[in-house]
Each structure stands twice: as structure tokens, then as C-alpha cells.
């Protein structure tokens, strides 16, 4: 009987161990580049600590005038993603606070398939070393998509090659 209890206790202990280790696995860290902040803006609490909270949707006239929210704007406003008490953090839907370097978690709450692909290195971009111990850098969602206006802006293309009829330069 004693043996049985011992075995069960051991089983529970091992099970618990498995869970904690898998939980550790879930909290994988990515070697991301520093988030793209407007210079002089961070830490946000420098200004916001002494300001009154205004949750009302409005046009931002004094500060953050460059922010034009075009990202499901009918359903969302600043404090849905930025935490009201800890301005230097972002907040997930469940209230958990995350750093700006982990913003992919916040994006992943709505964009599941993209988040899945990003974790595998398919969506988005990685630079540096993919093999061995060299330094690698993963781009955050926000490096390519402005979180307030995520649609890609058109680019000017690099010049086309010289056509073969251009006898001077072409090949």
C-alpha cells in the first residue's frame, strides 16, 4: 500500500515537472532587434506618469500627432494595447503585461497563423546566422508593419537593368 502511494506521489511529481518544463518551453525567447521607437519617446512614463487618464477616442492634437490609427480602428483605441498603469509596457487581452520587445505576443493574439509562421521564421525576416553560434536577429512585427497603420507603403523600385539594345552599358 505504502509503495503504491509512493509511486503515485512520484508520478504526480514527475507530471508536475513535465508541465513546468513545457511551460518554460512555451515561453521561448527570440533574439529580436530593439523595437522601432520614435527617438526620445521611451520611456513613456516620463510624461504619462503625471498625466490624467483620458480613455476617450479623439484626435491626438498635442502629442503623437504622427499616429494615425488605421488598424481595426472601429474596435480599438490606445489603451487596448498600451497599459494604463504601466505605460512602458503593453498589455495582452488577459491583462498580462509584456515588454515592447515581446510585442509579437500581442500581435499574435489576433493574427494567429502569421504568429505561427513568424515563430518558425517564415513570416517576417531574420538576418545574421541561421546555423552555428553566430549572432542572429529576428525582426519584430513592428519593424515592418507600423502597429498603428500596418498596411505596407508602396516603395520606389531600384533601377531596371540596361536593355541589350543599350550597346554602351548593356550586356
Amino acid at each position, binding site marked *: 500500500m505504502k509503495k503504491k502511494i509512493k509511486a503515485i506521489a512520484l508520478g504526480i511529481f514527475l507530471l508536475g515537472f513535465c508541465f513546468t518544463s513545457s511551460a518554460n518551453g512555451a515561453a521561448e525567447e527570440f533574439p529580436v532587434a530593439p523595437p522601432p521607437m520614435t527617438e526620445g519617446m521611451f520611456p513613456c512614463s516620463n510624461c504619462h506618469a503625471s498625466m490624467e487618464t483620458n480613455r476617450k477616442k479623439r484626435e491626438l492634437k498635442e502629442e503623437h500627432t504622427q499616429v494615425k490609427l488605421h488598424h481595426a480602428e472601429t474596435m480599438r483605441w490606445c489603451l487596448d494595447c498600451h497599459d494604463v498603469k504601466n505605460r512602458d509596457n503593453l498589455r495582452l487581452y488577459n491583462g498580462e503585461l509584456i515588454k515592447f520587445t515581446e510585442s509579437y505576443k500581442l500581435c499574435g493574439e489576433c493574427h494567429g497563423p502569421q504568429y505561427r509562421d513568424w515563430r518558425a*521564421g*517564415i513570416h*517576417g*525576416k531574420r538576418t545574421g546566422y*541561421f546555423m*552555428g553560434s553566430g549572432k542572429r536577429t529576428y525582426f519584430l512585427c513592428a519593424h515592418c508593419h507600423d502597429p498603428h497603420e500596418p498596411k505596407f507603403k*508602396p*516603395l520606389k523600385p531600384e533601377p*531596371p*537593368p540596361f536593355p541589350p539594345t543599350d550597346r554602351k552599358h548593356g550586356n
Partner: protein
Amino acid sequence: METKRYTRREFIRNASLTALAGVSLPLLSSCAKEETEDFLQKHFREMTAEEKKQVIAKLEQRYLQKFGRKLQISTKEAVPDTLWGYGLELSRCIGCRRCVYACVKENNQSRHDPQLQWIRVLRLKRGNLINLENSDHYYNPDTVPEKGFIYLPVQCQQCQNPPCVKVCPVHATWQEPDGIVAVDYNWCIGCRYCIAACPYKGRVFNWAEPNIPKEEINPSVHYLGNRPRMKCAVEKCTFCIQRVRDGRYPACVEACPTGTRKFGNLLDPNSEIRYIIDRKRVFRLKEDLNTESKFYYFFEA
């Protein structure tokens, strides 16, 4: 008086001696020593380690003279258990040509007269993906992407069954153990059979002495990759052999602003390229030609 008559045997002996002297004169004279060395240089795959070292030293000296700086020439061999594969997501490419110019810079291509580029971005009308002959790679709008078009970048597809290797009459091009099709620029005779054989237009030719600005030279080079070439050599994409054998992403992958380009080891089940092949809608260009290319185009699935 008896005139001296040559026998046929004597005549042949003298004639052949003269011919030999004529041939060996430039080989032995000191002014053409460099050319002689180049002429007698072995095929890269037949060189011993010692010979490779000598050739590298000679090349480094020559580049130092030409470009005014020391180039690091690597002869690093293929990493065991690697077979490189490339992925390119067509639904993301916007045709901005950043990859083209990153490649030119990284791989020391001739900038003009002749202008050589290893990547060609084709523009196709939407819904017209299969008619490559209707494509245009000289498009030049103010901004990309343009409405109604898609973009298909094409470069060497590193075929596993490469037609260019089959046609080379002197074995100057071959497939490395990691799947990269390499060229020994010194062994190439410039016949351009490989250019004719390639169904992807993946190879380009140095019609004249290449022009690279001294200050733009990339000093980290590989013997089979981006070392500066000479007139009459054929060249092509090597998946940035100088980078990937060290485990670094190719230059085009790092340059792409939309994250269209992916790279990895086909033999590693956890690599990015295997993730793509396992989960996305993948196709290869001109699969019907049995080239078994290792360049996988894919769509968001």
C-alpha cells in the same frame, strides 16, 4: 660538289624542335610568367591543399594590386549533411529589386560595361503566371507594387540535375556536395554552352573586363563564388557560397524588405525551408524539364 640533303627524319626532327621552341618561348620568358602560371593552373578540384594555398596567395597579391586592399579568399568546403534550398513567397514579393542590388554588391559583379546581375525580377500580368515569355524585367514605375501585376524573381535555381553542368565541355562547372553548382572561373573557356542550356537564364557572361569601383569591393570572398572575375568567364548565383557555408543567410535574404526570401538546409527537418515545403503550396519553375531545382516558390496557404 655535293649539296647536303636532309633526310625526311632529320626534317621532322628539326621542324618539331623549332615548333617546340616557338611554343615554349612565351612559357619560359619572364615577362609572361604570370600568364604561363595561369595557363598551367590546375582545375580547382584537382589541386592539392598546397597548390590551393599557392593559387590563393597569387590571387590575393593580384587583387591587392588591382583594388588596393587585401581580400580574404576562402576555399571552405561544403559542410557535411547540408543540401541548400531556397524559398520565395510570391504573394509577398513587391518587385522592388532590393535583392538585385544587394547581390551585385555582395558578389562583386561588374557594375557597367558589362552590367551583370544574377537576379532578374520578372513582372507578369496577374493570372498569367505560366506565360513567362510575356514577362517584362525592364519595368520602371514610380512605386511598386503595381496594380494588376505580380513579380517573379528568377536566379540560378541550383538544380539537382543541372543541364549547365552536363553541357560544359571542360568540366569547369559542377555540383558541390551541398548542392551548389559552382564554376571554376579560371578553367572556364567562355564557350557559353551553359548559358544556352540553362532554362532559367541563370548565368551571365563577362563580355569585357568587369568594372567594380575599388571602394565598393566586398573583401570577404570565396574562390568558387564572389571573388572578382575576369573577362570571358561565366558567372551565376551561388546562394552566396561565402556566407551560407559559414551559416549566414544569403545577401538577398537579408536585403528583402518584405521577408519574401527564405533559406535553409533541406536535410534538416527543423529548417525554415522544410517548414515551407511541409506546410505551404510550393512549386518549382519549369518542373517539367526535370531539372530538379532546389528553388521553391510558394504561396500563403
